[in-house]
């Protein structure tokens, strides 16, 4: 599959397809279904310094062509992620991108410092875009100057390249991208979920216990494609694109928009075999369309 290998800062990927953070846990469940070494990389579930239970249930609600979630960064905390989850993942030949989250700058810095030392962590994904926690998360992802400062601080301590995950809940996505680029980011991952809500007609109240949640799935794909299209023309940073991808054609669309690799989110919940199916399907597509290497497609929609 030499037409699919991609080199990005810190990451030497055998193919450009990886599960998105929060949609794959730490891989254990999926390892019963296929060999995790087949994946380009794995973006593990967001890790915070302390364990978090997350929000009350209901935490998910279905929407037209999509879903809302408000999990609330549930995770076992830095110590257990390193000691149990990352240790367990070492048996697979796959680079790990560790999603780092927190409530304040110090939390991010502490998690980034420790988790970036782990052998199989090849890059960090700075989560400044989670819409489902009261402090931190998206608060860092909507003000360019704040995002820049946080990126800078994390870059100072991280031993691996830092990708910043952008929120679509901003009026100027290019401004955000340029801010984190100024802060020293090595790459961008985009997009996180769009803030949304559903109201139960029987109770008259929001369906989710958290009231609002992050919208994902095919419904958000046009927003993501548009943002990748805009950002890729204005920054020099590599982009891992995501948002509603569920078919090979979707992956091609993200490449044409300007992505360097792609991540699969919600589709993993609908079809847990989706990543391996897409990797095989993408290779066939490239062969059929006489594409020598997938990177040739990057940004063709605006070049």
């Amino acid at each position, binding site marked *: 599959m030499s037409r699919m290998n991609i080199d990005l800062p810190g990451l030497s990927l055998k193919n450009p397809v990886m599960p998105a953070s929060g949609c794959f*846990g730490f891989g254990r*469940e999926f390892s019963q279904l296929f060999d995790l070494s087949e994946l380009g990389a794995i973006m593990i579930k967001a890790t915070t310094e302390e364990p978090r*239970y997350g929000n009350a249930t209901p935490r998910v609600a*279905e929407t037209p062509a999509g879903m809302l979630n408000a999990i609330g960064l549930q995770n076992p905390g830095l110590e257990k992620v390193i000691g149990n989850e990352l240790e367990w993942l070492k048996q697979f030949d796959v680079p790990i991108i560790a999603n780092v989250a927190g409530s304040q700058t110090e939390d991010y810095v502490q998690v980034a410092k420790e988790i970036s030392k782990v052998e199989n962590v090849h890059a960090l994904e700075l989560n400044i875009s989670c819409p489902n926690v009261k402090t931190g998360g998206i608060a860092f992802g909507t003000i360019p100057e704040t995002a820049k400062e946080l990126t800078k601080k994390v870059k100072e301590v991280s031993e691996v390249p830092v990708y910043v995950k952008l929120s679509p809940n901003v009026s100027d996505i290019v401004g955000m991208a340029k801010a984190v680029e100024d802060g020293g980011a090595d790459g961008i991952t985009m997009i996180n979920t769009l803030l949304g809500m559903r109201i139960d007609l029987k109770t008259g109240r929001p369906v989710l216990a958290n009231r609002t949640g992050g919208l994902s*799935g*095919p419904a958000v794909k046009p927003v993501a494609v548009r943002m990748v299209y805009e950002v890729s023309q204005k920054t020099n940073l590599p982009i891992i694109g995501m948002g509603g991808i569920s078919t090979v054609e979707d992956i091609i669309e993200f490449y044409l928009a300007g992505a360097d690799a792609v991540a699969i989110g919600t589709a993993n919940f609908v*079809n*847990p075999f989706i990543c391996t199916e897409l990797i095989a399907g993408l290779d066939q597509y490239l062969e059929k369309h006489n594409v020598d290497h997938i990177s040739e497609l990057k940004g063709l929609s605006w070049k």
Partner: protein
Amino acid sequence: MIQKELMTVVAQSEIAKNIFEMTLKGTLVDQMDEPGKFVHLKAGEEVTPLLRRPISIARIEPEKQEFTMIYRAEGAGTNVLARKRPGDKVNVLGPLGHGFPVGEAQTGQTALLIGGGIGVPPLYELSRRLNAKGVKTIHVLGFQNQAAAFYTEQFALLGETYVATVDGSLGEQGFVTDVVNNHGLKADIFYSCGPTVMLKAVEQLHAAPHGFISLEERMGCGIGACFACVCHPSADETGTSYLKICSDGPVFKAGEVAL
């Protein structure tokens, strides 16, 4: 082993108001080793409804490679499912979760099976297996009313069966717990499935020294990856411990989960 398969609808009928019984055929049935596990279905290939629907397994027939499920058509997904006809395909992921441990009941013992509404179906395959093992079963089935009741005769063929309806239109008026108390039902073990509020009441009955309950919850992935269906264990000193209903359950030891 979890599989994904386009299974074929063999039969489908409405057996009570909005309650459908569907039989599906395919090799995935070979993996169904335990009652109480569930399947996760995608009703159609369209993007709406997007997510799968978790549905319990009511009967397994390995020799025919068929299984039967009973579900209530109440939302977008289950309504699409309800329109399927014999010969149609359904995208099935499963079997998922941990089921009822039949091995916990010994030959010659008595098991009390308590089900409420759409929690009744998985108890049917459980009862068949217990009876095949020589465990005597007593069934207490609760429904909203007569129109919503199903499988009472099938259960009666397997053992002593009591029915309770909220409005008294079938069987005894009241809740399943009233029936257990009124008849002084006792057993060596209990198994229960139904709404959480019912399970909570069942756990407090003390009709058997130990038992197992099966929980219902809105699910995302069904395999333990999305953290949509978490619950707190009873023993949780830090407040950060959790159990995932889809993959740690849906069957838990009575008392294990904070209901």
